[in-house]
């Protein structure tokens, strides 16, 4: 030990006089292998020791287990898999929040991989980066049960996948409302066309067919221009041409197909990577609306309990759940966040900016998976709406490294620190397991 000017000093009994204090927070009290909420303090001079395997016997595997990662102690991984009841968790909504590059997509890929092998959940994944299927790298297509995976892509579908073509007749005015900003008059014009021309309303707009009420010429022209741009339609010598994914003839059953697949417990990935934000939202809104209606009517018919939960995975969630967006009116995603639970439909919202999402919606997301977040306002938004008191965990969250997460959920007794595995490693492990089972079949 040195002081200024490099002079030596030494202490009398240094190990007694010179030490570190650590401040700890009670998480739970363990009593006979059971965990109860911590309501008392450890006594004076109680010894503190490292975690041992037998301390964790209270962490049992729940029903419908969904694997999230291994328990983490600081930056060390503990050999203890952490599962949540996937059915409960998904229909009570999940928020995955982290700064860019901290491992949101990697975590989502791992969750999808695990859910793909199980039949309690069907999922609709709107994939703006086309990263989950694994077209040109590893991905969900490498899963041993890939027959439970459906992949829709607008161009060059690989074998087994489908082309994303949506029939114009499937579109309804309400699909457009949250997608771009319409004035009241424009919305009324959209509704007016639908009322008069029914399923041929888009064609009627493009072909300048008359509306019964007096709509301002300018409004109708703007509506036409915007609808044509959004749907990538063109018009020549009195004929309508479809240049994008929306089509006059093809894709009449695509949405019902997707809804059916989700309701059979499959994972449906929709590659929206080539689209502009608005088109992506239009496609997402269309499928999500039909999925929600399907489940809502299943509840009406009394057969909801025989269906798996339906989860909608949404990247960059504030685009549809942001305060500014919702000020203009609700959309299907906010409807699902507010009342989807009753109908077994949940959201998995992924974002780097949770502070943009209104408090009531954040509070409705009963499981929050928090990875590293450097920005303080974002950490605060999460901490204020978490299922456990995380007010002392600010520094902890700021210092989370790639793949290190904290899971705060109404379905856990405390905020569980987790190390999420790298997706590549899960695949390798999955292949090993498959080889094992294949062997066992040979030996029978």
């Amino acid at each position, binding site marked *: 030990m040195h*002081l200024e000017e490099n*002079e030596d*000093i030494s*202490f*009398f009994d240094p*190990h007694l*006089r*010179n*030490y*570190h*204090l*650590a*401040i*700890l*927070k*009670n*998480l*739970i*009290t*363990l*009593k006979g292998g059971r*965990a109860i909420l*911590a309501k008392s*303090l*450890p*006594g*004076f*001079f*109680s*010894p*503190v*020791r*490292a*975690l*041992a395997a037998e*301390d964790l016997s209270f962490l049992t595997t729940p029903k419908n287990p969904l694997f999230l990662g291994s*328990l*983490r*102690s*600081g*930056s*060390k991984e*503990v050999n203890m898999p952490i599962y949540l009841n996937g059915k409960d968790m998904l229909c009570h909504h999940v928020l995955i929040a982290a700064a860019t590059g901290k491992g949101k997509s990697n975590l989502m890929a791992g969750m999808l991989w695990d859910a793909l092998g199980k039949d309690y959940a069907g999922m609709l994944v709107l994939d703006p980066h086309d990263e989950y299927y694994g077209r040109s790298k590893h991905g969900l297509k490498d899963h041993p049960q890939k027959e439970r995976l459906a992949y829709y892509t607008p161009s060059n579908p690989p074998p087994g996948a489908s082309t994303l073509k949506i029939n114009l007749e499937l579109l309804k005015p309400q699909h457009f409302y949250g997608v771009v900003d319409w004035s009241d008059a424009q919305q009324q014009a959209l509704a007016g066309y639908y009322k008069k021309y029914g399923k041929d309303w888009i064609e009627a707009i493009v072909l300048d067919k008359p509306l019964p009420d007096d709509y301002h010429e300018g409004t109708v022209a703007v509506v036409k221009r915007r609808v044509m741009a959004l749907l990538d339609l063109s018009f020549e010598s009195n004929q309508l041409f479809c240049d994008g994914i929306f089509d006059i003839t093809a894709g009449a059953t695509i949405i019902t197909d997707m809804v059916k697949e989700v309701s059979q417990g499959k994972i449906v990935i929709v590659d929206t990577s080539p689209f502009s934000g608005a088109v992506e939202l239009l496609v997402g809104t269309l499928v999500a609306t039909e999925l929600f209606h399907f489940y809502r009517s299943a509840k009406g018919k009394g057969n909801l309990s025989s269906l798996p939960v339906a989860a909608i995975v949404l990247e960059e969630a504030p685009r549809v759940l942001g305060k500014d967006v919702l000020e203009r009116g609700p959309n299907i995603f906010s409807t699902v966040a507010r009342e989807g639970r009753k109908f077994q439909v949940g959201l998995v919202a992924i974002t780097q900016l949770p502070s943009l999402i209104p408090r009531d919606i954040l509070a409705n997301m009963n499981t929050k998976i928090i990875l590293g977040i450097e920005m303080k306002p974002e950490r605060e938004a999460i901490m204020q709406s978490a299922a456990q*008191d995380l007010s*002392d*965990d600010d*520094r*902890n969250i700021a*210092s989370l490294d790639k793949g290190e997460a904290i899971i705060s959920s109404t379905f856990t007794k*405390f905020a569980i*620190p987790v190390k999420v595995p790298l997706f590549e490693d899960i695949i390798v492990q999955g292949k090993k397991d498959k080889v094992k089972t294949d062997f066992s079949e040979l030996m029978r």
Partner: protein
Amino acid sequence: MKKGVVIGGEFGKVIVRQKSDSPIELGELVIAETGKKRCCRLSTLLMQASFPSKTLSSFRECILKRMKTSLFLTLI
């Protein structure tokens, strides 16, 4: 592995004196044994060295003594 002993604190803020050879890391899970078992987690980085008042005064004395000595030496 022993990590330290509880020397005080309040609810949600248990103060532990770390054993010098096994530092506790931010976010680490440790167990405080108090007849009943408890699972604690380090939640803040308040881990800097700190001194009880007694030690602090002897520390100060020690510095002063050294300073006097060096002053003395320069004078000569």
